[in-house]
């Protein structure tokens, strides 16, 4: 660990935490239907979209209508992506003559991108065409991000008044967030990345004659624009196999800081936006603080673990001064690598600029633990916010049990129905992670996917199911993922992890919306201030994390002690 390393981490966090405030104000205007700087340009486009689609922007939707529209659009979009992947060999923009994807892999990939997971069981350079990257994956990067944000906004609206029947209009939320937020930022960020060296071309792969003989194929593609939304929409699906470690996705330390900012910006702005929309900024800030505390601790922990290096290598005569450099690129160094991977697992982005499979055991445990916490540190765009609201409901419930009062959150009474639905949502995730990883580790078809022996093999499988269920998409990438068991199993985990969580959450929103909004009384447990932030962090760690402790102890923690004892597998 060095002072310079900490300074780099502090820079990334400071940029993110500061920019969240203006971004939250902008988004609050956006979702209140107000005018923004871009309205003169984008207003006509927006109205055109509604006219062609037959959407009445003033018509609100009940939670059931909202959920139905959300699922309908995503189901259709899943089918569209599946078709594109199966037909990519005959569709335009395929100079490398990439063949059609197999049905199994196309199912897994379509499930992955429609759920904002971006788990990649395919090898991009050889298994996906430029066309499918553009009009398949890029579009999903936009719409799955917009879907998550729309759902979060719908949940927030439940707290904005008494006896509400509707939660807003899904198509309006989807359109506004894409046109006014995602597109403009991605155009600017994409242009910066392009200027910094990220390619944007439809030419076939280049062939070079290296100085020291032989021949080198250099994969290219329309990367820069897709790279921007990949981070800003917390998607994470790399244009190339090496993801943000590839010099064409992330050419320098400065582009790395930009990408790290992009993937954290919206998730940290959303809780503050909640404060604006419910008319009490302090309420948003307490969620924001809880997220910031957890992420800061996580990045610090990962950096400390990685900067110490691997004692087995130090023993073999490798200098420990650079830290653990296996699976890391020189230009980033250990601090920016640790910050990026931890941010990307704390946000459900799942992008990597270094390879988690080769992280030290504790350096790899922290990213996995952030996923297992339920992706709230700060979580994916939208999903992080609606998940932390679920944790906030559970926190006031726990506090209510302790003091014997009916819990309230943001003026809404939290009763049995909401708590049951919250627990249902949380347990669906646990079922897939522990059930899936457990089953895969006893089935021969699952065990044969492992690339590492000993406790690290268990970590690989546990990581995969955590990543898929929590819609993160990062991997301990040695795992052979394109097998029948994992393509179908993880595909279903992604779909259930997204939609079987979202529907109960929208049901909670519908139920709370209908209740009267009560003014705070002397008996109300305050949901602002350090006491509540501490309680919320505690509930997230205990409720989200404790159920995974036994499994994590057998994987990364066992490996940590093996490594200290000098044991290899």
């Amino acid at each position, binding site marked *: 660990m060095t002072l310079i390393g900490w300074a*780099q981490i502090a820079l990334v966090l400071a940029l993110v935490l500061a920019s969240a405030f203006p971004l939250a104000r902008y988004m609050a205007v956006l979702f209140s239907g107000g005018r923004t700087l871009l309205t003169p340009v984008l207003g006509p486009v927006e109205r055109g*979209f509604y006219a062609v*689609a*037959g959407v009445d922007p003033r018509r609100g939707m009940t939670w059931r209508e909202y959920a139905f529209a959300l699922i309908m*659009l995503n189901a259709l979009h899943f089918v569209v992506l599946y078709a594109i992947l199966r037909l990519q060999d005959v569709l335009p923009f395929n100079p490398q003559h990439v063949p059609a994807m197999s049905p199994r892999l196309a199912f897994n990939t379509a499930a992955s991108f429609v759920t904002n997971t971006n788990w990649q069981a395919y090898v991009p350079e050889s298994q996906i065409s430029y066309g499918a990257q*553009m009009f398949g994956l890029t*579009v999903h990067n936009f*719409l799955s991000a917009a879907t998550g944000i729309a759902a979060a906004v719908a949940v927030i609206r439940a707290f904005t008044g008494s006896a509400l029947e509707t939660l807003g209009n899904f198509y309006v939320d*989807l359109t506004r967030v894409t046109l006014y937020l995602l*597109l403009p930022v991605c155009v600017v960020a*994409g242009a910066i990345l392009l200027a*910094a060296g990220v*390619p*944007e*071309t439809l030419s076939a792969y*280049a062939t*070079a*004659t*290296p*100085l*020291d003989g032989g021949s*080198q*194929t*250099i*994969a*290219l593609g329309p990367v*820069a*624009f897709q790279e921007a939304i990949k981070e800003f929409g917390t998607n994470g699906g790399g244009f190339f*196999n*090496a993801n943000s470690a*590839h*010099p064409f996705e992330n*050419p*320098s*330390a400065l582009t790395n800081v930009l990408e790290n900012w992009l993937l954290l910006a919206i998730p940290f702005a959303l809780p503050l936006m909640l404060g604006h929309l419910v008319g009490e900024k302090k309420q948003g800030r307490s969620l924001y603080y809880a997220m910031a505390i957890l992420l800061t601790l996580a990045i610090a922990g990962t950096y400390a673990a990685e900067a110490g*290096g691997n004692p087995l290598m130090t023993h*073999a*005569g490798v*200098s*420990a*001064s650079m830290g*653990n450099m*296996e*699976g*890391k*690129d*020189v*230009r980033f160094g250990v601090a*920016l690598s640790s910050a990026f991977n931890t941010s990307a697992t704390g946000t459900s982005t799942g992008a990597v*600029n270094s390879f988690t*499979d*080769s*992280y030290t055991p504790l350096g790899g445990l922290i990213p996995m633990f952030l996923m297992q916490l339920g992706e709230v540190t700060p979580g994916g765009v939208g999903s992080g916010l609606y998940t932390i609201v679920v944790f906030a409901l559970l926190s006031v419930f726990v506090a209510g049990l302790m003091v014997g009062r009916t819990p309230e959150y943001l003026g809404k009474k939290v009763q049995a129905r909401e708590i049951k639905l919250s627990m249902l949502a949380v347990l669906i995730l646990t079922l897939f992670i522990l059930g899936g990883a457990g089953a895969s580790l006893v089935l021969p078809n699952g065990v044969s996917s492992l*690339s590492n022996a000993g406790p690290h093999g268990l970590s690989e499988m546990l990581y995969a199911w955590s990543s898929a269920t929590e819609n993160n998409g990062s991997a*301990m*990438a*040695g795992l052979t993922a394109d097998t029948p068991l994992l393509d179908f199993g993880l595909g279903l985990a992604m779909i259930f992890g997204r939609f079987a969580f979202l529907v109960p959450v929208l049901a909670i929103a519908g139920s709370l919306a209908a209740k009267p909004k009560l003014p705070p009384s002397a008996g109300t447990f305050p949901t602002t201030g350090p006491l509540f932030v501490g309680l919320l962090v505690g509930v997230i760690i205990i409720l989200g994390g404790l159920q995974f402790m036994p499994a994590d102890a057998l994987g990364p923690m066992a*490996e940590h002690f*093996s490594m200290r004892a000098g044991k290899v*597998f």
Partner: protein
Amino acid sequence: MISQLRPAIVMIALFTILTGLVFPLGFVGVGQLVFPRQAGGSLIERGGHVVGSELIGQSFTSDRYFQGRPSALMGADPKDSSKQVSTPYDAGESGASNLGPTSKALIDRVTGDVAKAGDAAKAGGGPVPGDMVTTSASGLDPDMSPENAARQVARVARARAMSQQAVQALVRAHTAAPALGFIGAAHVNVLLLNLALDAASPAGGGHVSPPAAQ
């Protein structure tokens, strides 16, 4: 039902056109005009043909070149496609070793490379720089650490019959400091350094024409 389907279908179609065609193709077009070099992959030409990309590492094995980091990339054996062989810096693919920290294969590989580096880099001694014996994340890392370069100076100078000071000066000239003094790590671009070496000592490099279009 139809009334429910229409907005979903229309929205998907419109956003596919906008975010999947108009903007990506617009970026390609504007990229060609404004940033043609970057948009095309920052390719470097020498003597009229492409020798590589400034951003992508390449495999160097001769003593007269600085050698970048080990690359974990594997590809099909050209002689027998059922077998996998090492294809270092094959930029048609990308990726890491994915060997865990307690992997015997990893520790054996590193131990072997440390022994080799110890023989080759008599000068200096001491522990081997971390990046010299670890594989990168991308398998295409264009850079090495200044410490790694320093341990190769004597070998390269000998192979090219150059003075160590001259080689050291080239290394210094190609060492990029962290941005703003603290962002990222100091690094040396291996391909650009080797191109400069070839330009400075054509006899050792075997090429006369200087690097063009950087």
